[in-house]
């Protein structure tokens, strides 16, 4: 997958799960303040990303540091590289 394809898969998966407006999904959007997610949603976000990319990230400390959509992009891109 290209970097752009990874980002598109992240954004489309999260948009579907959390019924987000794609126009709001900019890399600097805070997932809590701007996209309206909460702690229950972040549980489901991990499951959605695990399903989309077929990796396990639930136990990763760095998941908890995620604040923006751009953080998710970078986190997933790094995991995809590690798994390739």
């Amino acid at each position: 997958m290209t970097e752009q394809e990874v980002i598109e898969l992240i954004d489309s998966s999260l948009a579907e799960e959390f019924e987000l407006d794609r126009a709001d999904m900019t890399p600097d959007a805070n997932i809590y303040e701007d996209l309206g997610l909460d702690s229950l949603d972040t549980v489901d976000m991990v499951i959605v990303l695990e399903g989309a990319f077929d990796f396990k990230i639930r136990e990763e400390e760095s998941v908890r540091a995620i604040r923006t959509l751009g953080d998710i992009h970078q986190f997933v891109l790094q995991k995809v590289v590690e798994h390739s």
Partner: protein
Amino acid sequence: MSLENVVVTGIGIISPLGLDYEQLTAALLNGETGVQHVAALEKIGGLRSRLAAPVEGVDPKSVPRKIRRSMSNMSIYAYLASQQALAMAGWPDEELSSGRLGVVIGSTLGSTETSENFFADYFRDYSLERMKSGLFFQIMGHSCAANVAQSLGITGRVMAPSAACATSCQAVGYAYEQIAFGRQDAILCGGADEFHPLTAATFDVMHAASINYNDQPERSPRPFDAARDGIVCGEGSGILLLEKREHAEARGATILAEICGFATTSDTSSIANPDSGAMLECMRLALADAGLSAADVDYVNAHATGTLQGDAAEAGAIRDLLGDSAPVSSLKGHLGHTMAASGSIELGACIGMMQRGVLVATRNLETVDKSCAGLEHLQQNKTTEANVILKNNFAMGGINSTIVLRSNKA
């Protein structure tokens, strides 16, 4: 028993015959049916019943996602019906969280569809890694009650009685008792259920589901009729806002009716088969609670689901209570059996009948069965004033329940 007088000030309805109180009342008076052939049931092995009475026209996405994520359809129905009841009552938003408003809403089970979907995935590899956070909130026993309280910000008591087909009759009764006792000023109460093939199968396996009218859905179920052959399962939610009369009057609310009696009993003769004597005792206890006698009853809204045994047992009990001195009808021929919602949807319909001065006939009652004879069966709508109504609901598990409803004019 009543220490405080308890009245109804709001009604919310999501049903197979309309998505609010006015639509339901109009459809019932018009003799319409919500029963239809459901093609999807043909794919299920061993299930002979092909009929159901589904709710149509509800868009789940009309409920905000963060509220909806913990809801299956039954909670969505209960939430929408609760909103309607509060709006009809003119309940002030600032009193939602006063602690004096409670919620008593039950269902037969948590969401079977949600459970099915979870286990279908779980059995692939016995992994819980794909389990979403909303699962438990949709399958827990108090899913409807908790979701209504959470979504509307209601901070008083929350209860979720569960007694299959008697659930919402009990819910209204328990709410009535708590308000009468002064523990709450008002309570949103009733029941909700969503259709799943397992519900139809539950009755089919006991030879109590309708199977002879699969190609003529409009002809089933047939309460009290000689050609009745069982239940048709439905879904929906009926929610009443019960309120202490003093509280309702102080805020200038319109009083729709009064709840003046309630009884619920356990029939230990069988977990599945109804006993006429136990039903009679339940109705007598409810009338005694109301301080009324059988002669005061103007109309009985029967549970009568269209089963051979249940209808005969209830007809016998009503015959023993009041003979043919008051009209009797069942709404299952219109609505199917909306399970945990049936008591409160049908109580809402009874208030509609009171307000319009018309009693709704039993749909599909063409030839009164000998076992159900001796009552004033309504085979045509009847224009009359009904000030005191008995509402029965009887459930698997030997649970009997009766509410006494009185018009505000009486």
